């Protein structure tokens, strides 16, 4: 039985203040700039409550743009300077965090990341530490938008996957429904009033959201069809011709998780050296450049193939679902309006017409 609570719009700051007592609460904030953007930032009292979809997904909460995996310190033995002692500190640090006003697509992003980081042969301790201390409160969308396509890829404006609490706006406030035990505990710890009576309104609002969507094409065959096009360079060239090979599509993606590892510092000074893990992206030529200098993916078309195949073919074959949650950021943020929906649809159609 899930907990169902109700909060008025005016009650939200109190609710957030309550959550901030035990956790860092990340909430959307509108940044002041000629081109406004919405970012998740630690909530502080007196900040306005923003419910807009963020420009940057809250992926950073589990996979930071750059993190220190471990710190190493080297010290020389005074009697025998050749003898260097190495001290490693690889404690995984994680702050208990609540994400407030996540969107269903971004929450599904966490579900996508969980498979490779937690369910494979090796568990990533850094990711795990943060994920276990994370609670996600997601606001369901009341409509789609021009670039998003969550319902093409198995999600939807009210999809619960990856969320601990689903929050839906009704006429006089918000109903919060727990999805997981974490969500239930989170709601039980608050003094929000019961919301069961309002639940029919929630169901109506969610239904309305679904009916507002433009019907989705059938892309079930994408995994096989994209794999079938693997060697058709002309296909990928056609779709990558305008690509600038920047990282806007991947760094703003809630489900991209490739990273790079670099060391900074030789370890002899007092701060020690750091092994850093930072985001990397397959659209950059350097992504695959090997130590020998050889690069198997110098052509951007082949890099595009990698991005599309990973999300719509390789990942589904490994884990069962697309690793794209349809948030549409890669489309909306692309400086040249490249549309992943077109590529996937075209791949489905082209490979079909081949048979």
């Amino acid at each position, binding site marked *: 039985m899930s907990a169902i609570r109700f909060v008025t719009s005016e009650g939200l700051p109190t609710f957030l203040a309550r959550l901030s007592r035990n956790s860092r609460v990340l909430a959307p904030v509108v*940044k*002041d*700039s*000629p*081109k*406004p*953007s919405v*970012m998740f930032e630690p909530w502080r009292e007196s900040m306005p409550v923003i419910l807009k*979809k963020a*420009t*940057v997904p809250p992926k950073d909460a589990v996979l*930071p*743009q*750059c993190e220190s995996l471990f710190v190493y310190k080297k010290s020389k033995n005074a009697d025998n300077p050749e003898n260097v002692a190495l001290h490693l500190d690889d404690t995984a640090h994680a702050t208990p965090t609540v994400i407030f006003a996540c969107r269903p697509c971004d929450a599904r992003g966490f579900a996508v990341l969980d498979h490779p980081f937690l369910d494979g042969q090796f568990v990533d301790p850094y990711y795990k530490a943060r994920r276990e201390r994370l609670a996600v409160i997601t606001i369901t969308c009341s*409509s*789609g*938008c*021009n*670039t998003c396509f969550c319902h093409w890829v198995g999600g939807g404006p009210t999809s619960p996957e990856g969320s601990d609490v689903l929050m839906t706006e009704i006429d006089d406030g918000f109903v919060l429904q727990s999805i997981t035990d974490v969500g239930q505990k989170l709601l039980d710890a608050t003094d929000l009033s019961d919301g069961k009576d309002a639940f029919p309104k929630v169901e109506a609002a969610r239904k309305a959201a679904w009916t*507002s*969507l*433009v019907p989705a094409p059938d892309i079930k065959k994408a995994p096989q069809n994209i794999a079938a096009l693997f060697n058709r360079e002309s296909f990928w060239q056609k779709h990558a*011709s*305008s690509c*600038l*090979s*920047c*990282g*806007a599509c*991947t*760094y*703003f993606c809630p489900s991209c998780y490739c990273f*790079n590892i*670099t060391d*900074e510092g030789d370890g002899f000074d007092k701060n020690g050296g750091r092994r*850093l893990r*930072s*985001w990397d*992206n397959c659209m*950059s*030529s*350097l992504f695959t450049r090997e130590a020998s200098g050889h690069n198997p993916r*110098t052509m951007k078309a082949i890099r595009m193939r990698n991005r599309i195949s990973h999300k719509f073919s390789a990942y589904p074959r490994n884990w069962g679902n697309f690793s794209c949650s349809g948030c549409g*950021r890669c*489309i909306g*943020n692309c*400086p*040249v*309006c*490249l*549309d992943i*929906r*077109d590529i996937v649809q075209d791949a489905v159609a082209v490979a079909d017409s081949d048979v």
Partner: protein
Amino acid sequence: MPVMEGKELRIVGFLCNWCSYGSADTAGVARAWQPTDLRIIRVPCSGRVDPLFIVKSLLNGADGVLVAGCHPRDCHYSAGNFYARRRLEVLKRFLPVLGINDARFEYTWISASEGQRWQQMVTSFTNRIHALGPAPRFENATPLPKVVGMALPPSSRPLGTGKNAPLDDLKQGIKEKLPDLECVIGWQRGYDGVHTAPLFMKIPEDVEKLVWGPFNVANPAVYLPKFKGKKVGIVVKGCDSRSVVELLQEHLVAREDVTIFALPCQGTLDMSRVKEKLGRYTVVDNVVCDETEVIITVDGKKHRLPMNDFAQVKCRLCTKPMAVFADTPLGESPEVEIATHVPPELALLDAMNLDERMAYWSGQITRCLRCYACRNACPMCVCRDYCVSDSRDPRWMTQEADVTQKLFFQAIHALHLAGRCTGCGECQRACPVGIPILALRQQIARTVEELFDDYRAGFDPAAVPPLLSYEVEEKSIREREWK
């Protein structure tokens, strides 16, 4: 060696091997007293000093940086210091826009025999830095919470939607030339009616997809260099044509390889303002252009967007709405009132003091995800896959996501574009989180105009970019008085 807390400051000196390092040596041999704050790095020539050495030092904790080379005309390599003089002067005028006091950086000329002069200079520079105290750091700055709104500058001419432009004639012209060309680059409808995407026309049917109008924001010149050696056509707005000219100036494309098609431009839309106006929408029902406004209906709701309110700022300030030159120009260039307005992004910074600028940048740049869309959308950033920001050897940057690294990348981009940037604004437009990075390029462009006879990049294919040349006697660069 740790700096003696409280007593010494961190001053980095880049001294050329042949003269200035010798002068420090001469002073040493003469046992002249010298301050000990300076950490000297010996370089073969002042021309070897990349302005980024200085920025990197200042961003990473140096309190002052001194560059010294041979006197003009005395360069061991004949002209290294002439090039250095131009670059370092541009840098000196660039630092304040970041919020760094330019008094923390000085460059000068000293010969090997001038031990005494060296002693005076290093003493006076060190005293100056001590008077300024330890340099404020970006990572300690409290981000500026509120940025004042930017006033739109008056428009240089009436803006419009370009609906009467002779698009059909243009298509005809392209079709005629198409058989001789690999492709012609232009624009087509994008994922919905209010977005366009690049178009590569190869066959006559492709030409039918060509669109012209206020949604053609992207600069097609960004694709030109990769066609180097092939015959290619390009459709340009006025601003795009300046990028093409700059590419010609730098021999990154050859004149005989490009065919330029042009129509007079009446302005393009600031898509971020359009987005704000339309709000979250699902479907574009209709887009109609009349002479001066665009009427967009989304989800059944009609929005009127007068070009005069929704055009990009660069279009309001545009002095070249028609291509600099074209092989197939169609239509007349409109009358343009050439008034020099400081672009609003830059005016905003001009009105701040150094501390405020530092606070402004530290607040804005923290959003950067290092996606490098700004770099890759820049038609003049031609290294791309080999950009120094990605290189581990030499290692200019780390992967750390802190303010200094992010800002340092912007300094790299801006300084690599010094005297080359045409102000097309693509870097800022491409930034998904709206960091107003164009101001950094604008400050350099303004400096280049001041120093080099009103030089503006991308107007004359025969002109040598100012930082790739020098004058023995510089008209506008004076050596500073030392005290």
